[in-house]
């Protein structure tokens, strides 16, 4: 069972996806193709990669400016839309970087219907530690 499959079991899960740091969509699962299609996921992955990078820069800058720690590294970025939310994380990638690995795993995300969205459950799956090979 992969992390994508686990993400698809979350309440209201509509899609789960993997993407590169540059935003390219990789493996994905779609529960409702009439509402979320591959084309939407493709742009969403690019948006999320950009937002995760900007949030990381802001967290870094904020910690330096204020002396307040605990914002960096960003665990997840969540965009709350009108009907659904998307939660993305690069934490697994960060763990590989800290272990000195050059080959990094993809970033991951899940799209959930707002009415049923359990953000904390999504965070828990995306923050799950996996052995660094």
């Amino acid at each position, binding site marked *: 069972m992969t992390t994508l499959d686990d993400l698809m079991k979350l309440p209201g899960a509509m899609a789960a996806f993997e993407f590169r740091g540059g935003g390219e969509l990789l493996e994905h699962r779609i529960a409702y193709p009439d509402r*979320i299609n591959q084309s939407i996921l493709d*742009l969403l992955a690019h948006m999320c990669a950009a*937002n995760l990078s*900007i949030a990381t820069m802001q967290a870094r800058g904020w910690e330096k400016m204020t002396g307040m720690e605990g*914002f960096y590294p960003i665990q997840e970025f969540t965009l*709350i839309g*009108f009907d659904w939310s998307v939660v993305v994380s690069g934490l697994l990638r960060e763990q590989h970087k800290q272990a000195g690995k050059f080959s990094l795993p993809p970033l991951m995300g899940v799209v959930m219907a*707002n009415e049923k969205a359990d*953000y904390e459950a999504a*965070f828990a799956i995306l923050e799950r530690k996996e052995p660094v090979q």
Partner: protein
Amino acid sequence: MSIVTDLLAKPGVVAAGEYAYRGDRFSYRGALSEEHARKASIMCRATTMSVNMEASMLEALEPLSGLPPPRGWLVHGPDYSVCVIANVFCLIDNSKGSINDLVGFMRQALAHVPSDMI
């Protein structure tokens, strides 16, 4: 009571505030200096404008996608999170508060706010 006062009464909320979309005003309450709150409001406004631009681009490519108009965004750090819905932001201590409760409260309390960012 204002939403900022309501938010500060929620478990784990360290500070909360509002900013004008045109960027000329902000207000806040909580454990931040005036200067840090000003910087926080600038960063929150910039990200809000950015996600709105992205959502309108998605809408142009895929109409009725269900994303626009975006209601807000959330950054989850190891100890603290920043949650923004409409033009209201708050900082939350992850160990003391619930993100699900906070987002649910803010979405409901700010559901009536127009999405035209004026």
